[in-house]
């Protein structure tokens, strides 16, 4: 069962790994993905993440359960922040644990690809000039194709 958090506060990757792995010595491979606030050209002041309370955690849990059916995971953690973040701050964390590296890598990539296209979050950037909603990327939709069996 994956552990899911939707929170405004930051996370610590080492602590999250330790909490997930505990003393499970069947684990041989741990993959983490961290997404951070980019500031292209140094004009970003803040980024605000809106989400859909009620749906967000359910949708993240659903995506994680698909990953857990598809790969032999020994642990799975998803944390996604909401609220107002500064450039460089953490947005999202995915951790996958498995006996071997391939399952851990593939499951983490899968989780991120589906999270990008399905988790109900919307980013708004506040720059020195204006505020604008971030547009969705065709590349994120295309990324789902490679997971079709």
């Amino acid at each position, binding site marked *: 069962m994956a552990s899911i958090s939707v929170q405004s506060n930051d996370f610590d990757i080492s602590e999250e790994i330790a909490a997930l792995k505990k003393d499970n010595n069947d684990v041989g491979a741990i993959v983490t993905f961290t997404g951070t606030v980019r500031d292209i050209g140094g004009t970003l002041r803040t980024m605000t993440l809106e989400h*859909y309370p009620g749906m967000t955690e359910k949708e993240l849990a659903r995506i994680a359960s698909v990953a857990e059916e598809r790969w032999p995971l020994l642990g799975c953690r998803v944390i996604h922040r909401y609220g107002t973040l500064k450039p460089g701050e953490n947005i999202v964390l995915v951790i996958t644990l498995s006996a071997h590296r391939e399952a851990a890598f593939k499951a983490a990539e899968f989780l991120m690809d589906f999270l990008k296209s399905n988790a*109900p979050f919307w980013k708004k950037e506040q720059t020195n000039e204006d505020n604008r909603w971030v547009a969705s990327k065709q590349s994120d939709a295309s990324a789902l194709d490679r997971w079709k069996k």
Partner: protein
Amino acid sequence: MIIKYFSWIREGVGTAEESLAKPGSVTTVSDLLDHLSGVSEQHSVALKERVFIKVAVNHVHVRHDTVIGDGDEIAIFPPVTGG
């Protein structure tokens, strides 16, 4: 039914949430979008580009041809951009 709006659709419509009794003309999500577009000029503009309108019914992503009921929570939002 409860209608929730998010992101620039929320800003366009001018409200985060509204409730209405399901009109007789509404069977599917698509019918609801047609109905809501008639509510105000703001609704009409915000809901115009249907290819950018995503919908969840009771917290589950659905297609526009999905049949909806009076007790449903319908969320209307643009493509997601988290992660």
